[in-house]
């Protein structure tokens, strides 16, 4: 029995661990379909489409965030070959799936370490989950 904290977390893409990750988060939502009919007094639903997306912040140390940034911040067009297998892990637990980087934000300010904020969207179901 143990708690988990930031020191247990890792972010992996295509099998390689991304260095200098300061935080990541993941969120899963399921849409609902309204199946309420006449004669019913309480709404009924069935699950519809599921969406999973997440974000990560990576310090710009050497070229730590480049592998993620480079998927959409580049001169070439973004294509299906830019879909990544991302794995978010904490201890021995993890969630992984194929992702599209949907946002890459670089910030550089006086007195602060330069960092990259990455947002990603799962395409398809998670390919592996261990909670």
């Amino acid at each position: 029995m143990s708690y988990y904290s930031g020191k247990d977390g890792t972010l992996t893409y295509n099998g390689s661990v991304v260095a200098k990750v300061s935080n990541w988060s993941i969120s899963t939502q399921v849409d609902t379909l309204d199946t309420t009919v006449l004669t019913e007094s309480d709404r009924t639903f069935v699950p519809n489409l599921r969406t999973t997306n997440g974000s990560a912040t990576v310090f710009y140390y050497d070229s730590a965030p480049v592998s993620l940034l480079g998927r959409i911040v580049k001169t070439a067009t973004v294509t299906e070959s830019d879909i990544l297998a991302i794995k978010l892990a904490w201890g021995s637990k993890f969630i992984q799936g194929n992702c599209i980087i949907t946002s890459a934000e670089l910030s550089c300010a006086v007195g602060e370490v330069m960092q990259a904020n990455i947002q990603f969207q799962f395409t398809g179901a998670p390919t592996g989950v261990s909670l």
Partner: protein
Amino acid sequence: MSQGPTFPDLTPSARSMSPGNFAGKTFRSQSGIETRIQYGNKSTDKSLELEFNAVTEADAAQIHDHYQACNGTLFTFWMSIKPLAGNPAFHQGDDSYSLNTANRFNSTPFGLRWRYAEPPQFDSIKAGRMSVRIKLIGVLDS
């Protein structure tokens, strides 16, 4: 015209009905006086629209097959109970859900028979779920 099978006993998500009108003709003279001549003792062209939202594919298939069994918009058919249930006080002399022959939503108490006014519309929502919209018309059948 031939009679098709009874409509599937499915509860709709939404229902809309218009009672139709009696056959007749209205004349208006130059002075503005109006004269109305009634040609029949039964109202006709009663309309009923039913929506079945996010139903199972099996339920949608029942409606599709019923439309086919009715030869599309040609055959008339009887209505089952659930499509007309849900407003018991609106039933004609009947506050239960069972006596469909006295339901103001139905065609039977008014001497009419239902037929499809147009082909049903089937929308795919997701695997396993579909939505269906149908429009019926109550006619005085020969």
